[in-house]
């Protein structure tokens, strides 16, 4: 147990800071402090170039094994990177789904050919991935997926028909991993396959969904005879559920560390506003502000405590439940600190960002497994309570 930064971590922090100062400038200046996709005025094309710049500086794949081109850094240094990145004004990251969800799953379940084909593009920031899990009839009950996949005996390709929904950033992605039913009479967790499929093809139609934030990170994705190569199933056909679950544990676990680094910046903006507009004199708001600051420290401590088991589904569910509820509370606090000024939408960047925080945080306790699903997972898999 060691809560202090090691000399290696301190040196690493200085390295991150120096690199950011030297590179987050010039063309990239406008990205400083920018949110992610869906934030007002986010320039996705520039953000992709930024990801490639990051890759050139070897700041992608920090936790990946060296055999796959990563740096195999311990979790402490990864946390240092994310913190320092945000502190230096680094913009919201674009390659999250590929780098922290698909890549570890490819390493665990992919063939060497798949790894050699797809990992370099993820690492280089040239290939972006979307996640094809939820469907209109399969949300929390993911095992109810109905999207169909069949091998075409003529071409040897997989042919996919069906529909996905809540597909984040599909409109900016090149590829999608699709959970589909490959055994026609199968039900539930059996007979599924996880396919790697190019998004930009005639068999795929995207339709953006307008969210309560006013933006559109999510899409509906329609497959109508969409195709991918016969070899591009991740894991064995019929065994897709286990692979999909491995990826979900990544999604709820260590992959959110980068996201959490932004929480500090969001808390800071609430603190600054409270000092400026007099909310800091309200005794009840003072209590809630202190609770938010202390709770953020707990999220960090929790990540440091369970770091040894990044894909442990129990630890992941606890962490996901905790951080999403923390941020949702912060959104509510932000609105109460804004007070009556929250009633009107304005061009003021601070007010805009707090409105975004408040609205976008309502999704945090829904996506990647709702609060209720996380509680089920914890009860049954961490506490061993009967189904």
């Amino acid at each position: 147990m060691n809560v202090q930064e090691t000399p290696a971590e301190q040196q690493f922090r200085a390295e991150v800071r120096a690199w950011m100062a030297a590179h987050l400038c010039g063309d990239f200046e406008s990205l400083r402090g920018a949110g992610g996709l869906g934030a007002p005025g986010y320039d996705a094309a520039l953000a992709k170039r930024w990801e490639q710049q990051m890759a050139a500086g070897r700041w992608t794949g920090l936790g990946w094994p060296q055999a796959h081109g990563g740096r195999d850094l311990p979790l402490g240094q990864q946390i240092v990177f994310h913190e320092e990145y945000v502190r230096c004004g680094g913009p919201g990251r674009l390659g999250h789904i590929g780098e922290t969800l698909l890549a570890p799953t490819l390493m665990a379940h992919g063939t060497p050919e798949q790894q050699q084909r797809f990992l370099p593009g993820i690492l280089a920031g040239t290939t972006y991935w979307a996640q094809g899990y939820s469907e209109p009839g399969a949300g929390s009950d993911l095992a109810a997926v109905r999207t169909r996949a069949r091998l075409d005996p003529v071409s040897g390709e997989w042919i996919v028909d069906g529909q996905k929904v809540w597909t984040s950033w599909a409109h900016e992605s090149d590829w999608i991993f699709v959970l589909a039913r490959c055994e026609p009479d199968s039900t539930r967790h059996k007979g599924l396959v996880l396919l790697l499929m190019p998004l930009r093809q005639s068999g795929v139609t995207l339709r953006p969904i307008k969210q309560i934030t006013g933006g559109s990170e999510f899409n509906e994705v329609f497959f109508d005879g969409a195709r991918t190569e016969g070899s591009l199933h991740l894991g064995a056909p019929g065994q897709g559920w286990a692979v999909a679950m491995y990826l979900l544990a990544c999604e709820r676990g260590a992959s959110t560390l980068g996201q959490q680094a932004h929480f500090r910046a969001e808390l800071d903006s609430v603190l600054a506003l409270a000092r400026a507009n007099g909310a800091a004199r309200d005794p009840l708001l003072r209590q809630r502000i202190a609770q938010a600051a202390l709770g953020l420290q707990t999220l960090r401590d929790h990540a440091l405590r369970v770091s040894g088991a990044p894909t442990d589904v129990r630890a992941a569910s606890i962490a996901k439940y905790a951080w999403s509820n923390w941020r949702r509370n912060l959104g509510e606090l932000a609105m109460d600190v804004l007070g009556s000024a929250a009633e009107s939408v304005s061009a003021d960047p601070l007010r805009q960002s707090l409105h975004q925080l408040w609205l976008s945080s309502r999704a945090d306790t829904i996506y990647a497994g709702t609060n209720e699903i996380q509680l089920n997972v914890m009860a049954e898999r961490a506490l061993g309570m009967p189904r």
Partner: protein
Amino acid sequence: MDLALNDEQQLIVDSAVAFLDKSSTLTQVRSTSETGDGFDRALWQEVAAMGWCGVHLPEAAGGLGLGLVELALLQEQLGRHLACIPFLDSVVLAASLLRTLPGNEQTQALLGSIANGERVLALAMGHPDVDQCLTARANANGAGWVLQGHWPGVGSAQLADALLLPARTALGECLLFLVPADAPSLSLEPLQALDATRRAADVRATDLQLPATACLARGPDLAQAWQRASCLAAIALAAEQMGVAQACLDLTLAYTAQRQQFGKAIASFQAVKHRCAQMLVVLEQARSAVYGAAAMADTDPTTAVLLFHAAQARMEATQAALFCSREAIQLHGGMGFTWEFDPHLFLRRAQLSSQRLAPVSWWCEQVAAQLLDENHALAECLP
């Protein structure tokens, strides 16, 4: 940076669990707390023999030379078992203050007698703010002192060999006195405790004559040590609260697994599962906060940083203990309302602990002041 237990720390936990499961069962706790004076002296002897009373104290003072992390690990298990020993008052509170004071032979000897369990000391630390504890007057009398006043609800006072009592002079200076428990002119009135596993007494001094050597510390030295010691003690108290929360979850899981209604175990109902899972979340968050705060305290940080982490541990652990003990009663149904079932023992402890060393609202206000009012000094230590 990491907050996982190392092998030695895991060994401390495992051996503490094995020992207390055998030597401090809830049957024994009930027997000690309902009939005797609330002090399991046999347990104290064994605990002292294992070195627990000096786990966090320097080897020079007869301790094991480990840190607050290791003390917290023991506190967690003592809380989980509701062990009827004055560990919090003597080993956590009194020793934390004595070791934080500028050292001398007298305090060193006192620490030694705490570390080997030979003496039990009770410190009248009702609040982390020493000014709020100065309810008695000290008047110089020749070379010595005369104490006059009272100290309400001093933990383990009636079990202690000696008391550590703060007082103020006519000029407002704070002083700390060592007073033998059997001193004439000192009266102890035991309180009938809401939590019978914890004892406390109102202490009164009427023209109590003390030699000059009874004054252990004074002025800014004492005020600073008091503040730091209260933060260290708050983290160790939080560890105990976390143990209470763990016990409540354990009890509830065992009960709901065997209790049948509608033809099946009630643990299979989602309404019950979700409550248990929420208990798990607050408990695990509290554990992370306590380990993180204790590990931070062991790096000897500034008082502002120490206070932030103590507030964090107190907030998370108080919430965990209150939530889990209340849910334990609810999920035991009617049985949870009976004296015979154990959840109420933990509800009592959770409530009592939530008010010791100031309520969470006080800690949060200290943090708010530093984040919002005072040069935003604490903003630097936010993650």
